[in-house]
């Protein structure tokens, strides 16, 4: 491996900019870090070069731990976006700089310099000064300068960003050819998708400091694992369907399931992705030679050279929810983006307002389904905790948010401003109190994974019981304003559920770069009990780590209520994950037992109550 990053994390003034990034780059590989601005990709590059220090984690170059080495000793070649040529030196002096620092003889320097000038196609320009060169030529000089020292790895920070389109294309081809010729491992940072597809052996997609997915361009485009990547790369239609055995159901239509999507979701819901080019259009249902989705009305037509883009609106399909492209809150229609070649367009001309049948040729399911949150605000002080924590979670998890305002519209607008941007979508919704009725009405129309409300431990759990009874969601009681969740205590002892606590906590924590402590308390230390507890915890640890959450196990012996509180006080936990007790026969959920006595003794710690699905789900922990 040329470059290895292990759990690298970086903060600037409390703000996490790189979040637990782990990455391995093979010798000779061309790796592209793709992300929008502010996603932390340049910081990753700077940390590899040592221009920024890593707060946590390890960086290895060719099996050499360089985490604490200064830049000078890392032997990396770096190319900057604005070229960063030494203005007071000629082109030749620029290229020779590194060699002269290393006291290489003049003769050897000149040889290397000529070799480099030839490599980048600038023979004869050695005596020029940088300002006498065009932008493209300057960047070639910067590349030659970085390569003259025969670096272990080549780091390129948006090297083509400042150039115009034609030069960019030329330089892109040269860059790839030179990298291949020298066989040096390279990381290129860019926000340009086309550039990434063109250059990369593998692409890593970054968002809010996290490395969301890594894969070959083909894989990421055709088989994305997350909703973020599916919608970030190209155009994606995403629907929420159901799994049924080895099939996926979208309304009445069944498709064969190719990926192991159910593994992570547990509740049978699954996100289905298909690209515009995966669709076929026809006049009648019979004319489609693939599974039909429905008949839609053309609402928009566009032309981009080789293709025609068509937007269609389909009537609601029972049990199916459109995720992307988005539809307005409360509407059940499904909007689909399709594209077809001009040949197809000529064979079946369509215009706005006409009807056409839509069929799906290919689809793909997301193995990490997107999350949806309901954040509840009533304008009170404790709602602030829900807004700030909910916004942060949604941004990190790229979740969709429904912001439910209880009472007047004005405070809802304030909350909208505070919650910021960066999540998959934000919908606003106002309703009258009392809160738990409003929540029940909202989740009936739009079910969510998690309800987030502000909460003070003093208030007790009556409110929480009511919210949990109103639907099929988990519940986060946000106890502190601010945006840090780093240490979660997952209590796996609270009775039956266990596995679900762990799975949902994993889905959430993986986005936060948080660590988890898995705690089990057993009452007496006999062999059988402790063996059971240990094997249970190993399973839990395994599944949390499958989500990329660093986990440690703790076994305590004694009364669970007492031991959980002790553990809570001994560590710096900011989130406690507990299983919700199963409902009574009358459907009521009562939290008078363990949960209640635990939370009385915790202050300033948010509480995630995970609902058990164990009675109806079929997955097992491996």
């Amino acid at each position, binding site marked *: 491996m040329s470059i290895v990053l292990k759990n690298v994390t970086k903060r600037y003034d409390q703000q996490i900019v790189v979040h637990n990034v782990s990455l391995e780059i093979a010798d000779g590989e061309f790796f592209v870090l793709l992300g929008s601005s502010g996603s932390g990709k340049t910081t990753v590059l700077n940390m590899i070069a040592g221009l920024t220090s890593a707060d946590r984690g390890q960086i290895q170059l060719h099996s050499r731990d360089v985490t604490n080495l200064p830049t000078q000793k890392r032997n990396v070649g770096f190319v900057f976006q604005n070229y960063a040529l030494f203005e007071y030196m000629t082109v030749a002096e620029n290229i020779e*700089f*590194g060699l002269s620092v290393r006291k290489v003889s003049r003769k050897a320097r000149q040889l290397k310099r000529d070799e480099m000038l030839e490599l980048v196609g600038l023979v004869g320009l050695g005596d020029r000064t940088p300002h006498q060169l065009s932008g493209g030529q300057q960047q070639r000089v910067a590349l030659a300068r*970085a390569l003259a020292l025969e670096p272990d790895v080549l780091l390129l920070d948006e090297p083509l960003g400042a150039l115009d389109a034609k030069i960019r294309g030329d330089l892109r081809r040269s860059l790839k050819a030179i990298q291949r010729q020298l066989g040096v491992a390279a990381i290129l940072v860019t926000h340009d998708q086309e550039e990434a597809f063109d250059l990369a052996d593998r692409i890593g997609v970054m968002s809010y400091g996290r490395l969301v997915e890594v894969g070959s361009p083909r894989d990421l485009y055709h088989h994305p694992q997350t909703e973020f990547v599916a919608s970030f790369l190209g155009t994606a239609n995403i629907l929420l369907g159901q799994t049924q055995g080895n099939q996926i159901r979208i309304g009445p239509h069944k498709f064969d399931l190719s990926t192991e999507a159910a593994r992570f979701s547990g509740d049978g819901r699954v996100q289905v992705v298909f690209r515009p080019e995966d669709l076929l259009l026809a006049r009648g249902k019979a004319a489609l030679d693939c599974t039909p989705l429905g008949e839609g009305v053309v609402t928009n037509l566009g032309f981009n050279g080789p293709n025609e883009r068509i937007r269609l609106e389909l009537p609601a399909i029972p049990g199916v929810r459109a995720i992307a492209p988005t539809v307005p809150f409360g509407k059940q229609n499904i909007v689909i983006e399709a594209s077809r070649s001009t040949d197809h367009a000529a064979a079946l001309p369509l215009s706005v307002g006409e009807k056409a049948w839509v069929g799906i040729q290919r689809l793909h399911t997301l193995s990490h389904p997107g999350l949806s949150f309901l954040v509840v605000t009533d304008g009170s002080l404790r709602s602030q905790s829900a807004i700030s924590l909910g916004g942060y979670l949604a941004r990190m998890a790229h979740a969709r948010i429904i912001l439910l305002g209880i009472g007047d519209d004005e405070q809802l607008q304030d909350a909208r401003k505070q919650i910021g941007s960066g999540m998959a979508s934000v919908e606003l919704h106002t309703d009258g109190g009392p809160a738990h009725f409003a929540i029940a009405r909202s989740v009936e129309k739009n079910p969510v994974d998690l309800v987030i409300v502000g909460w003070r431990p003093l208030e007790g759990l009556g409110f929480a019981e009511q919210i949990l009874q109103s639907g099929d969601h988990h519940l986060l009681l946000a106890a502190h304003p601010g945006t840090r969740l780093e240490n979660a205590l997952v209590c796996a002892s609270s009775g039956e559920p266990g596995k679900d606590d762990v799975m949902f906590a994993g889905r959430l924590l993986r986005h936060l770069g948080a660590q988890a402590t898995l705690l089990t308390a057993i009452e007496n230390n006999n062999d059988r009990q402790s063996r059971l507890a240990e094997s249970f915890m190993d399973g839990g640890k395994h599944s949390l780590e499958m989500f990329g959450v660093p986990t440690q196990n703790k076994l305590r012996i004694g009364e669970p209520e007492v031991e959980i509180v002790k553990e809570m006080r001994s560590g710096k936990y900011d989130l406690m994950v507990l299983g919700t007790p199963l409902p009574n026969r009358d459907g009521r959920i009562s939290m008078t037992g363990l949960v209640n006595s635990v939370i009385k003794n915790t202050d300033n710690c948010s509480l995630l109550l995970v609902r058990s699905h164990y009675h109806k789900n079929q997955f097992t922990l491996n």
Partner: protein
Amino acid sequence: MNTLTAKTQAVIRRRSPLPWRHWGIRTIAISYLVVMLIIPLLVILQDGLREGLGELWRQVTLPIAWHALKLTLWTSAVMMLINTIMGTLTAFILVRYDFPGKSFLNAVIDLPLAIPTLVTGVMLVILLGPQQAIGAWLKETFHFSIIFAPPGIILALLYLTFPFVVRSVQPVLLELDLAQEHAAATLGAGGWTIFRRIILPPLTLPILTGALLSFARAIGEFGSIVIVAGNIPLYSQTAAVYVFGEVESENRLGASAVSVVMVTIAFGLMMFANYLRNRSRFGFRKENE
């Protein structure tokens, strides 16, 4: 981006929309300049050369006058050297580092320009005079006096000219591209090499300009030195104080002669500094933009 566009832009300059290009206003401005600046200079030149170049030379080479001129030049030179190093360092710290009180320090740097120079002299005497703690201790322990001796002159000059180098280096330093330093670091260059080969070249001109200006300013300094130096002829009397003495004793020719030399030196330095500054402004850095 390239040379051509920069030049073309310079040629096709848009007309000023203000009416100030008219002759009347130009005449007023130029006349003012002539009356206020040029005529007094010409008068002193004419006065100094009244008895011919030989007489001027004789007046200047009188032992006391000659010593005063030499003292002025060497104390100014020492000041310039220290000021160049410390001024560059100060500018560097102000631009590159954050520390408590930074903005206060930044504001205080210009203070010497506002404080009456006489007050500067008084401050130094109070601080370091032979009757004061520090001065007395230095005198007793090292037989070294600052006040009423050449070191006092240098101190006073340093105080007065503190802003010059700092203020001419600071803006250039602010504009430097950090990426170049990072690039040098990735190429293996250590801190000192980066400073010498990457940071220093663009700073050379501003440092030099600042140093020359501070020198020119120092040559004519009177107010603080008259308090600090003790003004002992052939020991601690500078040219400016000498001129004052000659005016007092009604030796106008002596006063004018030394004045002419001082004006010539100062004028020459100013012209040179100006030339350097223009070079840095319209030199190759400019074409780059």
